């Protein structure tokens, strides 16, 4: 599946803010990115698919939007 990936916060120093990737589920996507960018290893991460936070591995559909988010630090 080709999905759109959005990166936020400190992750934007390693990844582009927005790019496309191929993956069947969110766990595979993150594993692939870690393989390509070793600096991602060990990072705390929140994942949202189509603007809803997911807490487990979820299968991806074509054109899904996957957000990769470090811990929040607003306020």
């Amino acid at each position, binding site marked *: 599946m080709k999905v759109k990936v959005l990166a*936020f916060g*400190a992750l934007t120093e390693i990844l582009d803010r927005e790019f496309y990737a191929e993956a069947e589920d969110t766990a595979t996507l993150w594993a692939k990115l870690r393989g390509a960018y070793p600096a991602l290893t060990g990072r705390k991460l929140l994942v949202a698919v189509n603007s809803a936070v997911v807490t487990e591995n979820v299968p991806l559909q074509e054109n899904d939007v996957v957000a990769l988010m470090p811990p929040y*630090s*607003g*306020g």
Partner: protein
Amino acid sequence: MKSEKKVWVEGAIAPQKVADSLASHASKTNIGAHAMFLGQIRADEIEGKTVRAIEYSAYRELADTGMTDIREAIFSKYELTCMHVYHSLGVVAAGEICLFVFTSAPHRKAAIEACEEVVERIKKELPIWGREIFDDDTHQWKVNT
């Protein structure tokens, strides 16, 4: 009262906004208490460098949904008359205001407790990130405690 409100402010929140928001509630004569919280950028010193600003970014779509959830939960839990929240995006300098939470109610207990709960939930639940910019233009990403 539960309708969508504008939350995002480009850059710092002006002190005048606080006065204007307050003045606009004078006609609501069932209000007896207002509670406000304002976050101000601290010029923290970290390893000999001083924070001169924080640059905020957010995942807007998700943050708007989160803010709607918070608003609805707070209005169900507390007897509130109004609630307003403003959060900066972009660069806010040390000494400037980056967050303004404003709750109003007939009685003080509801206004005060709601205000505090909104502040805690915003920090915990909204996808916002702060990049601390030092006086030598290096930076680090803020971590909420």
